């Protein structure tokens, strides 16, 4: 059903039930995301896509649009909230972009630039986190995990459908875990898929390091904003 919503004051015709974050992108309005993957079930964990819907703050990846919806994206208060959430992610983990294999291809880093983050307003927690090298083709650099749960929900063992990645414990104690036996059965393309799906440099392919040596690295020419808006199915 064709419906009409208001997006930052602009009237937009769209289809009922489409996800707000997609509708916004289709209409040239970028909303940053870190856990959301277009076409996959929404996870709603990073909250970075928070916008104001009919006066309430909501995560745009969790909201199907309905007729008459009034949406504010680039309004100062909610824009600052999105920035604060990204800062919170940086303060919670241990993120050192210059030494990270994912630098230049990292979604958290790119979104950090998009929201204009300079330094986190929250105290850096420097939580000690251990690495996990146990599986053959992947390792987990947990300092960088943002608990988006993409890997937990979207990467499964091809044969049994079982979870390869999982979350252990809860709250501040939570850690990302990898089932070594299942991970060692992952075909190379699934290993690559997992590493690329990770929005940060937590799931890293072994024996790869940098795609190109330092000094020859070609970073993304287009910003995450441009890429998000490009992905729109016309």
């Amino acid at each position, binding site marked *: 059903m064709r419906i009409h919503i208001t997006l930052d004051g602009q009237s937009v015709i769209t289809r009922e039930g489409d996800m707000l974050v997609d509708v916004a992108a289709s209409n040239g309005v970028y909303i940053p995301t870190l856990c959301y993957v277009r076409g996959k079930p929404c996870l709603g964990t990073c909250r970075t896509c928070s916008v104001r819907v009919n006066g309430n703050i909501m995560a745009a990846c969790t909201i199907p649009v309905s007729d008459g919806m009034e949406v504010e994206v680039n309004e100062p208060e909610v824009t600052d909230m999105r920035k604060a959430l990204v800062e919170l992610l940086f303060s919670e983990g241990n993120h050192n972009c210059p030494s990270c294999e994912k630098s230049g291809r990292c979604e958290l880093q790119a979104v950090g630039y998009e929201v204009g983050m300079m330094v986190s307003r929250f105290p850096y927690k420097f939580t000690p986190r251990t690495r996990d090298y146990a599986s053959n083709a992947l390792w987990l650099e947990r300092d960088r995990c943002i608990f988006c749960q993409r890997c937990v929900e979207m990467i499964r063992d091809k044969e049994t459908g079982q979870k390869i990645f999982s979350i252990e414990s*809860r709250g501040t104690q939570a850690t990302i875990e990898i089932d070594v036996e299942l991970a060692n059965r992952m075909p190379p393309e699934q290993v690559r898929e997992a590493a690329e799906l990770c929005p940060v440099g937590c799931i890293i392919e072994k024996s790869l390091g940098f795609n190109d040596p330092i000094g020859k690295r070609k970073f993304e020419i287009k910003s995450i904003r441009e890429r998000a808006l490009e992905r729109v199915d016309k």
Partner: protein
Amino acid sequence: MNQKTRQILEHYHSDKTRLMDMLWDLQREDGYISDAAVASLAEGLNLSALDVRETLSFYHFFHDRPFGKHKIYLANSVIAKMNGYDDVRNALEQETGCTFGGVDASGTFGLGDANCIGLSDQEPAMMVDEVVFTNLTAAKIRDVVTQLKQGKTAVEIANPQGVSSKDVAYVDAMVASNIRNQGAVMFKADRDYRAILKACLDTHPQEVIETMTNASLRGRGGAGFPTGLKWQLGRNAEGDEKYIICNADEGEPGTFKDRVLLTRSPKDVLLGMVMAAFAIGSRHGILYLRAEYCYLRDYLQQQIDAFRHEGLLGEQILGAAFDFDIRIQMGAGAYVCGDETALIESCEGKRGTPRVKPPYPIQQGYLGMPTSVNNVETLAIASRIIEKGSDWFSAMGTDESTGTRLLSVAGDCDRPGIYEIEWGTTLNEVMQMIGANDPNAVQISGPAGDCLSVEKDGDREFCYSDLSCNGSLMVFDKSRDILHVVRDFMQFFVEESCGICVPCRAGGVDLLHKMELVIAGRASQQDIDEVTSWSKLLKATSRCGLGTASPNPILATLDKFPEIYAQKLVVQKGALLPSFDMDAAMAGYDLAQKSLVEEA
């Protein structure tokens, strides 16, 4: 795979949605859930071992390592701390020979903390294995631990008469109900459940819903959603199956009304579930009982069996073309499971992570089917409304808040316990009723709720448009240190955060640290400004009610008792923030220097 694991898998038909029950059975058998047991379960359920651990590691009362033959959890609530908690805690460590969080050398005792265990009217209180001990003193601890050392079981000590755990006398032997004020709705003796249900089943389900709507009954769990509307949506929703879930995961610190309802009037609750099922067209009910109330389990199962025996549950109930039955689902220690979607996840054998909404449970809930989750008290009241009519009910209370509600009263007062009050009663009236001496602050609806100043708020009314209390009411007199209470509440939210979303998981820690700065006298106005701003972020962007409510303890007390914060604030002198601790910062330098030297 050992015999026991195989039996457990067979018993639950290798249904992974029953993982919680399987983990409980394993822990009961072995005392803890070993890696080998996890591997066997995983194999039998076609899950990865880590997937089983996702559930196992989420819940407070599941142990993956031996945690003593006797597992002791002492409630560390703010109310306990007002009633001799420290002495009891020390006595426990002394008598058992182990420290909290650990096991003694002989493996006899495991000592753990627990957040509020629903006994605030008789704290300090502790859980030992599957029973509880209340009104603890150091002497009582010595007695209990000595008997345990002599080889008695916790049940034998708590229930020396050897009453069957199916009997209410078993519950009464260890926990007092403390009903102080009875009103028109709850705890009525000698109800003819058969006749009441027969009359209900003789009407049309739509009439049942209309009666609820006309009575203007609103959910007693806290959110106050109109019960009639919820049932109507459930009736209208399409699904091969529909489910009724009774939310007995009464986890809000300070509340214990559901414990007393389930002890004194369990059949009121069961009857409410049957009526709800009839109204929406459900065949299956689940009573989700928090692990802290495990001593009620056999008794409740007996009540369910009795109902079935009388033909009020089962197939063709009272001759009508209506089948419905109820099973008990035990929780395992997670406050967040009070959220209805987290509770549903837990019922499905998963981590108690709140779901993304929409869809709401009434559209897609348990196993993806329409599910009505109702509070214990709501269901008990519903059964009374069907019996007595909507006019009878709505004549009580106020126009927009009809009927009565139960308050669980704890803290500084002469008569802690259960009070049934009509909506519209004022705070001052309640203070008088409970015998509060020199009350200063009153926390309503638990840490997630509001903090009231008796001086400023005394004339305010309990009703949905003003003090919409979920049943928890804790009184603090002028001798109590409010800042420490707030700190404990913030700690509670950090411990109970499921960790699925960043504002609650990480932001809660920052707010807790700010409270610690205030208490330490190292906070400035800038810290308070940041608290206000960050709280707004948590309230706006958290995924569920736990996160959105977590800043409330600070915000409410900043509003009502600004002077206690002002007294603690310091003014910044020079370039450094008062929160910057030069000595602590330099200590790190010394440490680093030392380890460098050692390495070299």
